[in-house]
């Protein structure tokens, strides 16, 4: 049985926690709006990029050797994993990290893995599990800039080109709606030369390249990588904020519930005390008579 003073103290402490969570909810709601509009801005580029790549794939002749499309015997694989820098965002980080871990373990039985971690949480998760982390990018999960994506894309492209790794995957959280976030695993390199849209595969386009196809791809594919990574980073950021918003919202509601319970207990105790006092007074008065 806790004393009335202790209950009072708990109510105050839960109340201040509730205020903080309420504020965090509001902050992430407004940040979410901003991130969402940025995501809406990049999605057309993302889609156009996919279309352009698709029609290019349809038009290249098989005898053109492209640097980034060579399927090599896989010895080493790289994984880019996008997580957040800060916690208090529900199951966002655990979901994507778990998915990534399961995938890595299934995929690289007898291969070496190297992890490129974006965000403190993912870095921590894989470091504790003794994975080989070759690159980390911290402090950019919420305010992603294109420069961060470029840096990461550059790193991935160099690793692939130098033969350090033979395939590159990116694992991120895809934003469906405020409440549904799905971890996605996408193979970045080597680039598949199969057109994704199979319906009009039978009508190849005769396309000219300027400059020649080899040079074109040397420049175009890094750009494709950067855009894809940037898009994934933004998706991740939006998911993180949405996840934080909803979890803070439910935390605020839980806090209100706890306060209600505690207030009820407090009042009951107060009532009991008053009753006891009255009984004491009455018995005292009776004894005098």
């Amino acid at each position, binding site marked *: 049985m806790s004393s009335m003073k202790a209950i009072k103290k708990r109510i105050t402490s839960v109340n201040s926690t509730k205020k903080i969570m309420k504020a965090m909810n509001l902050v992430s709601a407004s940040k979410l709006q901003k991130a969402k509009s*940025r995501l809406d801005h990049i999605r057309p580029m993302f889609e*156009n990029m996919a279309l*352009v790549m698709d029609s*290019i794939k349809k038009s290249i002749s098989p005898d053109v050797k492209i640097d980034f499309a060579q399927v090599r015997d896989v010895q080493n694989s790289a994984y880019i994993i996008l997580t957040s820098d800060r916690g208090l965002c529900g199951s966002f980080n655990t979901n994507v990290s778990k998915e990534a871990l399961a995938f890595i373990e299934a995929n690289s039985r007898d291969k070496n893995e190297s992890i490129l971690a974006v965000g403190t949480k993912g870095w921590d998760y894989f470091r504790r599990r003794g994975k080989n982390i070759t690159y980390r990018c911290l402090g950019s999960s919420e305010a992603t800039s294109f420069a961060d994506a470029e840096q990461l894309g550059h790193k991935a492209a160099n690793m692939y080109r130098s033969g350090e790794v033979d395939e590159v995957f990116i694992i991120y959280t895809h934003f469906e709606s405020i409440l549904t976030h799905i971890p996605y695993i996408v193979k970045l390199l080597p680039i598949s030369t199969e057109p994704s849209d199979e319906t009009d595969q039978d009508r190849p386009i005769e*396309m*000219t*390249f300027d*400059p020649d196809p080899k040079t074109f791809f040397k420049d175009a594919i890094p*750009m494709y990588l950067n855009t894809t990574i940037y898009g994934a980073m933004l998706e991740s950021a939006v998911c993180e904020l949405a996840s934080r918003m909803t979890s803070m919202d439910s935390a605020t509601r839980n806090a209100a519930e706890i306060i209600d319970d505690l207030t009820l207990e407090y009042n009951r105790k107060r009532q009991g005390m008053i009753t006891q006092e009255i009984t004491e007074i009455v018995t005292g008065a009776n004894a005098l008579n």
Partner: protein
Amino acid sequence: MAKNMLRLQITTPEAVKIDEDVDMVIMRCLTGDMGILPNHEPVSAMLDIGILRIFNGELERRMAVFGGIAQVNDNVVTILANDAQWPEDIDFAFVQSERDRIARRSKEDLDDLEIQRDHVLMRRTLVQIEVSSYPILSKIEDNGQEKRLS
């Protein structure tokens, strides 16, 4: 017969810059300027840092494009640029001070990488200056024409 038009779409990581029908586009590719008219053959090209000229009837607009991919297919011109700016997006005073700063730096002793970076930056700023002075220049030209007509 309906007039043949090109659909021009320019997207950057930040925003969709333009999505409309135009008559002609001249873009700066790595191998030089390339003019695109309706019914152009399918082509994919790498863009250089340069000026993109958009023609629509009598009107010409210019835009600074800083590298990217252009694809022409089926009368649609899709440009995926790293960055692109309309004249009104450019802070003229800032760009000018940047140009002067880089020009001053070129007198200093720099290593190759820095020189290369400065070279790219300089080209950027020069393109920006040219694009942002274009609306003013074209207005002067227009006025001159009106005077000659009257």
